[in-house]
């Protein structure tokens, strides 16, 4: 095991996959001249030349062309700069990428990755702070993943590049500088499989991305109060690992879902719905969701903190499903 940063981990994944397969290439705004806004592409131009490219500010073209490239025998990785800009290219994602394989009767694979740095970081305000997995949750044909650590970042990015289907890779901006243990040598984090970060018996806490570490902190604190929280790190947000969630809920009988995205129409809603569909008679409390209030992310730290979900919100939700006074 080595200790490296999240951005270094994604860089290693890119290097390994680009060395292995000459049809893997990456392009996006400001990734050659700047090395990516978080340094996650540093060194690739020297090694891979034209296979890493800066593009005009044309998200629609970036994403749409990734589809054309994937359909014709290459494995593009398109960087969105900020996940918020997916909105610019939404038709390409929703109507082209997600549907091409299906509507053409499975004639071609679509091995492409859209890297989308998301989340609240450094008071970037309404158009640079979003977690937009909810936007794409409703579209059949996409795979959506969100690593929570350097190790899962590398493993998931490698899996995403090898996947013969479109994958949106949400990487939380706050995670980039964070360091963590990463296995030596080549490994893959499987797509579609959640990981249990911490076993527990009283409450199932389903979460992903940045909220995993917040959840872990809350769980450690609650452990002292005798509350045993089982943390499920989803890793793949679509199609997510319902089986692991259900198995856990059937054990704990209580569930909280925590994400940074707004609650309304979010992933938590889908998870809660599936739990009540498939494990209703195991529930001792309603499934509670923790997420941002239904507002854009405001600028001032005071406002931002108020809108964003905090550790205390997770704690309160856990108390609530246990019917404890918090």
């Amino acid at each position, binding site marked *: 095991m080595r200790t490296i940063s999240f951005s270094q981990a994604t860089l290693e994944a890119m290097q390994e996959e680009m060395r292995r397969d000459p049809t893997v290439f990456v392009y996006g705004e400001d990734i050659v001249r700047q090395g990516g806004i978080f340094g996650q592409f540093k060194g690739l131009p020297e090694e891979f030349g034209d296979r890493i490219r800066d593009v005009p500010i044309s998200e629609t073209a970036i994403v749409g062309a990734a589809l054309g490239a994937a359909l014709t025998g290459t494995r593009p990785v398109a960087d969105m700069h900020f996940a918020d800009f997916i909105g610019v290219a939404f038709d390409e994602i929703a109507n082209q990428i997600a549907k091409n394989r299906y509507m053409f009767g499975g004639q071609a694979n679509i091995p492409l990755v859209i890297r989308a740095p998301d989340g609240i970081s450094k008071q970037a305000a309404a158009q640079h702070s979003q977690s937009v997995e909810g936007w794409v949750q409703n579209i059949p044909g996409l795979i959506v993943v969100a690593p929570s650590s350097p190790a899962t970042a590398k493993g998931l990015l490698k899996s995403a590049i090898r996947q013969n289907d479109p994958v949106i890779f949400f990487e939380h901006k706050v995670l980039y500088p964070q360091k963590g243990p990463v296995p030596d040598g080549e490994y893959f984090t499987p797509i579609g499989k959640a990981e249990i970060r911490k*076993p527990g*018996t009283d409450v199932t806490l389903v979460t992903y991305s940045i909220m995993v570490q917040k959840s872990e902190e809350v769980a450690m604190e609650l*452990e*002292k109060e*005798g509350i*045993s929280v089982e943390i499920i790190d989803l890793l793949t947000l679509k199609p997510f690992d319902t089986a692991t969630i259900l198995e856990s809920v059937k054990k704990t*009988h209580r569930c909280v879902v925590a994400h940074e995205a707004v609650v309304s129409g979010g992933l938590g809603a889908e998870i809660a719905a599936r739990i009540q569909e498939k494990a*209703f*008679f*195991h*529930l*001792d*409390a309603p499934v509670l969701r923790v997420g941002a209030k239904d507002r854009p992310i405001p600028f001032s730290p005071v406002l931002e903190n108020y809108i964003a979900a905090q550790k205390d919100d997770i704690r309160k939700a856990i108390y609530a499903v246990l*019917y404890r006074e918090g």
Partner: protein
Amino acid sequence: MATEILMPQLGLTMTEGLIMEWKKREGEKVSRGEVLFSVENDKATIDVSAQADGVLARILVPEMVTVPVGSAVGIIAGENEAVPAPAAAPGAKKPETTVTATTEAIPASGQLKPQAELKPNTQPGPQPEQAKPALAQAADDTGYIRSSPYARVLADAEGINLGTIRGTGPEGAIIARDIPLDSRPREQMQQLDRMPPIAQTPIVQQAGFVDINLTRIQSVAAERMAQSWATIPQFTLYDEADAAAVQALAERFKSEQKPVSLTVILAKLLAHTAVKYPLINAVWLGGGKVRTFRDVMVNIAMDTPEGLVVPVLPHCVTRGFGELGRVMKDLSERAKNRSLTPADYEGGTITLSNLGMFGIKRFRAIINPPQTAILAVGAISPRLVPSGSGYVSRNYIEFSLTADHRVVDGAYAARALAHLRNLIENPLFLLD
């Protein structure tokens, strides 16, 4: 707005509570969260905090009086607020109540008055207008009983009519914790709960003898032990094991400054044995039925200044040694300062009693009903064992398993005990 202080429900089976001590006097200011009084129920003594800010306007139930759950025991009012007096309640500072204090009621012989007379009449006369039902009942106007889906499933499995359960969830809904999973027959449980309260010390002393009144906890324990002894055909198997490995493990945790005692290690080893031999991790349901559990929750017998308490060390298989050690440390600290809560006693599936620290070499323990087995552990002591042509000194630990012969036969218990012996001698593979 005056708020009534109600006798809280502090556990599954609590139907009434004894006011041990008022920590505030009438007229004294109280703030939300501050301790108002302490209550003893059948399992523990618990401090009860104020739910509102204000002044303790009136104490309706004096110390050492038992009242049903949900009864008003006092009133908190705003400062300078006139407290509406219940019709028959006295307006004076010190309320006269029709309650008979148990301290006065106990005759020298120790014979108790029938419970009916002890039931206090805390709200004599017409109820004050704002008085609400103590706890919202689970059933609504239409007779629909609010409950969580899981609570319904549990109640169904236990054959319990939800209408007989008092809910503690939101709006009085019945939730899982309200369903007595303990499978003692219901009447028996109610009987235990109805047992007359016994005033805790002071000891009544007269010429020539001393009468000691057991605490409520002690008397419940006494009942249970008698019940166990009288109704369970129990037998005991004795064994011993080389203790070197568990001692080394305990040392290792000590050097890592982890609070993992020998008792914790043995509890976990017992738990892993119980998973393999589920009939010792079970409760007797009666009627030819026994329920085994997937999870192992080990009751640990603990010595406290107040006497024996047997809280539960939960999830001994799934939790690691370190985590169990921390939980155990917390349990024993809270046992010492009397802050164990009813929840700490819930859910035990097997019991461990370790008297090794007193130098007791071997003993048999009495089954903690409705469980089917208990492990008694003695002291570690050196002994000479053959080695080559001579002898070497080895540390041995003795232990015994007492089991319910209605459920467990001798060979089964012997196999379980052999498994445990093997684990004690080779505990390392359980390390995570």
